[in-house]
């Protein structure tokens, strides 16, 4: 502390900036103001003038300014900032051009730590419909589809807008940018690109299937440059994944995985994809879909090379088909919950081969005996964390990196994943989890028959 104080003291006098904000004088250094960022209003204030009569004047509230100045000096908000609502701080930060710093400090995805999360807020929705789909952005804005409406909350969880759509209910929703989302439904033809601020449909995208019937949306996914949509024809005899250009004008660029069914011929690789995830570390698209038939639940998981249009790997699921499946790029692993066993399995992507098999992380004996214990379970990966919902409970699976000197009985292959149950006793036994999403430093949970959205985050203080 002493040394940094000394170095500040040795700075030349001319670097000191005097400001008059709404009648109060502030003194700081050019260096501190420069921390606001090169494009911000604060960094443009020069120290050229030093005479008292020529002090730069800013016609704003001095108390609010002092909060931002403290923030620039220390990197933290002073305790005095709690005198102001977040909404007030945000609108003032927009004036000074320091909103990005505010977001970085309060909703930064790098601060996400699943072990710190606890159920802390409820986001209310208006009307009577419960959430059917939810989508988040990196910094924690969240879009919620409920009934025919989409409500958007910004990163500070302030309600931004609610718009009316043509859908009766939205089954798939994906935020494309903070103000634009892609939405589709299994009972409504076409994928709509919707402007969430103004409330109109920017683009209406349809898949031209061979039967010329309507095309419903089964799943939406995206990479940095592409938007993927799994379409099924209205007669349910053909399906495909259409790849749209996300950076340009939503032009269709590729069509992959086109399947057509004739007569009674059926095989699990013809099932339309109901989940699409981009695996960035391998540049592959994971597409999974399952089908409940007389012989039990059948499913298929494929990894697609989008550019060549080839499935580079495929797994047919017959015995303990997945209830849900997810990929973690950072772990290079795929995870599933078995629909019969209800247990979590993983598959290492690093040495994938046609013979690769799931490794069970739980009780292997359940494989044969159990009956649909995994029905409705969800798996979601966020960074190197794997979240699994079973009924109303949420489990966190994390990889524990153990020293090679430890040779325990808990080894599954060469990797160790450990389970922890999230939440407190009072959170147990809540309604069934329907969606798990992540944004900023938060986790969002929706439940069956529960209208407000749960926000799990680190509780300050």
């Amino acid at each position, binding site marked *: 502390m002493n040394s940094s104080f000394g170095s500040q003291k040795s700075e030349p006098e001319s670097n000191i900036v005097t400001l*008059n904000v*709404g*009648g109060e004088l502030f003194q700081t250094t050019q260096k501190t103001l420069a921390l606001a960022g090169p494009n911000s209003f604060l960094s443009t204030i020069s120290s050229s003038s030093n005479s008292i009569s020529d002090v730069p*004047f800013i*016609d*704003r*509230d001095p*108390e*609010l300014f002092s909060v931002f100045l403290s923030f620039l000096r220390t990197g933290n908000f002073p305790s005095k900032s709690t*005198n*102001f*609502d977040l*909404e*007030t701080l945000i*609108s*003032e930060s927009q*004036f000074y051009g320091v909103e990005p710093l505010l977001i970085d400090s309060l909703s930064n995805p790098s601060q996400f730590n699943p072990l710190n999360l606890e*159920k*802390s*807020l*409820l*986001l*209310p929705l*208006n*009307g*009577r*419909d419960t959430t059917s789909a939810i989508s988040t952005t990196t910094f924690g804005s969240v879009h919620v589809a409920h*009934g*025919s*409406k989409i*409500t958007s*909350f910004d990163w500070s*969880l*302030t*309600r931004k*807008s*609610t*718009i*009316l*759509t*043509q859908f*009766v209910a939205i089954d798939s929703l994906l935020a494309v940018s903070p103000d634009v989302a892609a939405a589709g439904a299994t009972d409504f033809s076409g994928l709509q690109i919707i402007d969430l601020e*103004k*409330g*109109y*449909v*920017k683009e209406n995208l349809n898949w031209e299937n061979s039967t010329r019937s309507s095309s419903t949306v089964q799943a939406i996914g995206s990479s940095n440059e592409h938007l993927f949509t799994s379409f099924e024809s209205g007669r349910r005899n053909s399906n495909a994944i259409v790849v749209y250009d996300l950076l340009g004008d939503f032009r269709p660029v590729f069509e992959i995985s086109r399947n057509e069914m004739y007569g009674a011929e059926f095989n699990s690789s013809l099932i339309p994809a109901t989940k699409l995830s981009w695996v960035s570390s391998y540049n592959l698209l994971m597409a999974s879909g399952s089908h409940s038939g007389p012989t039990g639940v059948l499913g298929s998981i494929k990894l697609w090379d989008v550019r060549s249009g080839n499935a580079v790997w495929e797994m047919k699921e017959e015995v303990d088909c997945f209830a849900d499946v997810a990929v973690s790029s950072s772990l290079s692993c795929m995870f599933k919950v078995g629909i019969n066993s209800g247990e979590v399995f993983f598959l290492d992507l690093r040495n994938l081969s046609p013979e690769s098999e799931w490794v069970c992380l739980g009780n292997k004996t359940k494989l044969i005996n159990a009956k649909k214990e995994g029905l409705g379970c969800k798996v979601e990966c966020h960074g190197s964390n794997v979240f699994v919902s079973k009924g109303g409970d949420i489990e966190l699976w994390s990889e524990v990196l153990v020293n090679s000197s430890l040779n325990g009985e808990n080894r599954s292959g060469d990797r160790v994943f450990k389970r922890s149950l999230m939440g407190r006793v009072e959170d147990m036994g809540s309604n069934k989890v329907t969606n798990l999403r992540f944004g900023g430093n938060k986790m969002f949970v929706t439940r069956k028959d529960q*209208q*407000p959205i*749960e*926000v799990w985050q680190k509780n300050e203080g």
Partner: protein
Amino acid sequence: METKVSASSSPELSPNHRIKLNIGGKIFETTVSTLQSSALLASLSISTPTQPPIFIDRNPDIFSPLLSLLRTHRLHSTALRHFSLHQLVNESQFYGLHSCPLSSFSPPPFSPFDASFVTSISPPSSAIVSDFSASSTTSLLLAHSGKISYYDATTLSHSSTLRTHLDGISAIAAITPNISAVGSNSSAGLHFYTRADHVGSLYWVDNSDTRVQKSRVTSISDSVGNGGESVFSAAFECKHGENAVLIVDKSTLKVVVEIGRQSGNSAKSSAIRKLRWVPQLGLLVGSAVNCGAFGYSGYVRLWDPRSGEMIWETNEPGGMVRNSRLGDTMGDIDVDPEGLYLAKVGSKTGDLGVADLRKLGSDPWVYLKDPNPGLSANWKDGGSVVVHCFKGNVFVGRDGGLEAWSKMEEREVVEGGGDEMKWSLYRRNYVDKVEDSERGIIRKIEGGGNRLFVSRENVEGIEVWETSRLSGVKAV
């Protein structure tokens, strides 16, 4: 402003000219351009930058959020932590801040599919509200038993309550900013009150017809004066059913003309229960819905109030208009004075029918399709129904439930798509939650400003619905 320092002497100030104010001992510094939107500037004498700060003997703590409001054109929610809206509005009036702040004190634009129950306002005593009027921009009027309670239309704070000579008020309307008109089920005449006094009464009289006597008021139009018109209308009904609409001059409080007199001996000629003025077309719309032993019956009539001529009418059941939905008579009806259409809800099916006021013919009704079958399933034949048009939406109260039909946004307006096309963009949504609907049967819905007000049967006070500025996030 009371503490005028001196008359403005230097109108040539540059907008960037700085001004120092000493409010109760605390120095504030701002610029001419910030103060320009208030009367404060004009009352200050500003000459040189070196002059001592102008002293105003007020509380500096409350001045600070008001100055922020002038700077940013929005009221910071933080200000409401320390001061009530009422205090802030009062203080802003002291400083002469007029138009800009009032809009920042009111809630954001009302959106029916993003509105929620915010609060309930209830008069201090005998609080079951028999009628209310929210059409005035300055005050909200509540009639309860024989009293009128005035509330500030922006802050919803109670300003005064007046005891009228009536035992009960069944109809109330603000006809000018100062005068309200009231009518009663139990005594004759239309009565005018300022906030303090009874200023006159008006009776429907016809010396040539002995049947016209002791007429009671059944409805008062929501001020035929929203567009600055000088008249309003009221419907009167005599003991034996004889009824008519009187057009009344607002300044003299005298009858200008009587229109639509009828005998009242059948449902088709019963007294009007709802009067609304459509300024764009210069039409007065009157309607009545009666519920009898054989179900609902009702009518709508459109008059040109200047000539007294009836332009169009429809009667249900039957009448001269052929009804494509036989037996599904209207349960309630309203007119949208901005969107220019009639909206009715069928008493049997619960379906919403709309008719364009500019294209009324023998069967103008278009029935809206509800793509969500789950909503219609809750409708039970014979339930209570209330229809109110506000800001391009049709609000329907079905027993306790509140729903709205609203139009989707379009990227480009398709011209010539026809009525069917236009109405296909409407979607039905619940405004309320299930627990809201359990508070009682909805009696009246009326919009005013950026709010919707709802009164329920045998429930004290009225409910206020707003599109909330804050998300209302709850900590667990």
